[in-house]
């Protein structure tokens, strides 16, 4: 134990006494490690978020029904419960899913499509609240601009029908709870609760909607049947299988299968390229660090011999170069982290104006830093142990005369 403590303090004294040499080792290590960390930061930052964007892009995950069918609520429940489906919601006939919107701030009335939405809708994933009840609505950016309104404004929605030979119009006071980002939808679309969509269809079909005091025939149909649906797979990997299953059920659907294949192969190829660079980098890093630390053990042979001569045991002597390698590993890693952080900030700030909101170009998680430290320490210790074992095997007299 005494020898152990002594070796720790001696190795540190030597390390700081030779600060120029130690500094060179640290710089050499950091200069290999820092670029690798920046490369990984880029891979983890911009490349990953680009790929994730492509993978998660709702339009690539959407499975669209072609033509109209007859789907009951039980069918929706069955599909909604599946793990490979992220979201599914009924659609009504497109003619019935239209509303006229009017705002005090715009001169015109705009005919707008109604989309039912609910929690977890991939199209509206960036929006916190979803329309509830009959009086809330989220507008697409396009229609919001035309109506010249913002979040929180109130607008008038109106529906027209021919009922018993007369033209009837009802109004509904809607609150715009949010506006969907421009990339979500380029058409005039109002996202509403399924309740409002169904009420609209009922009205147009001449049925009464008691909740909204809309008169008409009393609903006689026992079960509601929907002609279509809006469906999103959990990931692009699920799309093809879902399409096949639906077609086997006799449902004619379409999906962006060709684009999905392209995205998947880009993802795969980029990953391969990164791993090749990473492996070459890691091997090069290991060799350069290993070689310099190995050489250091050789350089220290004389002093190690003196330590053995004054009575340190061979096994403890190995610790001397190993500890010094650890110091180099730790300091080099610290320096590399510093360089990386400066580079990360610079890259992110320089390119910030070109970015979408909250996207970062260069980014690493805390655990990535610790992986880097682990790899560094492992390589450092291995190289030094190999060199150290060699040093401890030579007889104490070897190296004494080089003084």
């Amino acid at each position, binding site marked *: 134990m005494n020898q152990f403590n002594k070796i720790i303090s001696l190795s540190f004294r030597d390390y700081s006494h030779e600060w120029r040499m130690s500094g060179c080792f640290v710089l050499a290590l950091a200069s290999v490690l820092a670029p690798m960390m920046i490369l990984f930061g880029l891979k983890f930052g911009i490349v990953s978020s680009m790929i994730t964007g492509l993978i998660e892009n709702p339009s690539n995950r959407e499975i669209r029904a072609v033509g109209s069918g007859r789907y009951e609520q039980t069918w929706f429940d069955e599909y909604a419960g599946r793990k490979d489906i992220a979201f599914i919601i009924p659609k009504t006939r497109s003619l019935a899913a239209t509303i006229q919107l009017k705002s005090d701030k715009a001169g015109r009335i705009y005919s707008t499509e109604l989309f039912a939405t609910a929690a977890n809708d991939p199209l509206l994933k960036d929006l916190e609240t979803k329309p509830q009840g009959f009086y809330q609505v989220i507008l697409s950016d396009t229609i919001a601009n035309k109506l010249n309104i913002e979040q929180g404004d109130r607008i008038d929605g109106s529906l027209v029908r021919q009922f018993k030979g007369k033209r009837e119009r009802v109004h509904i006071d809607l609150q715009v709870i949010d506006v969907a980002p421009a990339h979500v939808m380029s058409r005039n679309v109002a996202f509403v609760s399924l309740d409002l969509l169904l009420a609209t269809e009922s009205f147009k079909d001449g049925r009464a909607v008691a909740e909204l005091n809309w008169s008409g025939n009393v609903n006689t149909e026992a079960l509601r049947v929907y002609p279509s649906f809006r469906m999103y797979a959990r990931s692009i990997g699920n799309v093809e299988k879902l399409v096949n299953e639906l077609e086997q059920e006799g449902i004619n659907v379409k999906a962006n299968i060709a684009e999905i294949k392209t995205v998947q192969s880009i993802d795969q190829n980029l990953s391969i390229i990164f791993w090749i660079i990473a492996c070459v980098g890691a091997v090069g890093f290991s060799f350069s660090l290993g070689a310099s630390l190995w050489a250091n053990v050789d350089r220290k042979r004389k002093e190690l011999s003196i330590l*053995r*001569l*004054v009575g340190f*045991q061979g096994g403890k002597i190995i610790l001397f170069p190993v500890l010094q390698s650890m110091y180099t590993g730790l300091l080099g890693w610290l320096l590399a982290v510093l360089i990386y952080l400066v580079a990360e900030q610079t890259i992110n700030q320089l390119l910030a104006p070109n970015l979408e909101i909250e996207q970062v170009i260069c980014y690493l998680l805390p655990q990535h830093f610790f992986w880097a430290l682990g790899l560094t320490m492992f390589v450092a210790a291995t190289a030094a142990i190999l060199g150290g074992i060699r040093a401890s095997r030579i007889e*104490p*007299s070897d190296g004494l005369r080089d003084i």
Partner: protein
Amino acid sequence: MSVIYSLKNVVKSRVLDGAGFRLQVPSVEIKAQENVALVGHSGCGKSTLLDMLALALHPDAADEFNLSPQGDDTFNIDTLWKKKKQNVLAKIRKQHIGYVLQQGGLLPYLTVRENIELPRKLMNMPEDDSTHSIARVMGIHRQLDKLPGLLSAGERQRVAFTRAISHRPSILLADEPTASLDPITARKIMAVVMELVKGLKITMITASHDWAHVYKMDLRSLHQEAEVVENGNIYQSTFRD
């Protein structure tokens, strides 16, 4: 006086630059508190023999290689080497032997004081003023807090001697300790060392190529004889009284 080193037919061979070299010690006994000089020109194997006596180099063969540092414990050094008992050898070295190298062999990153106290600390010896008093006798007590790099060659050798005896070994080995010093400094240092060694009852073995110097100090000397054997392939060096 008890016998400290007892060597019979100890052989060590080396190949240097393609030429064979063989060191032989037919029969040598060194008694406690003796003051022995290994005399011979440089390259004759003095350092090799000294390294073997310091347990820092293993002999190729030995009929007998015993060390009895305290007079009663006897270690069979040859057997310890053969059994690869490096740690036992390190322990004996640490306790009983002090070694002075030609260039001092001081650790450059420790102060003079730390260099001197290193062997004591390794043996868990308490801190006392003996370091300072030996340093005073050796004339280096004003240099204790300096790094060796700031000392003159003579001062470094004084420090090396002080370190070698700081833990009170029974044996002091010195390999050409004064070779890099001017004759006046060398004589001064050796005179002080002789005094100390005598006072501390230490057995001292010095390698030297300086014959005149050795005779003047009136030491027992082991002389080296060289011959070329085996068709001129091997340079054989033999040490005897």
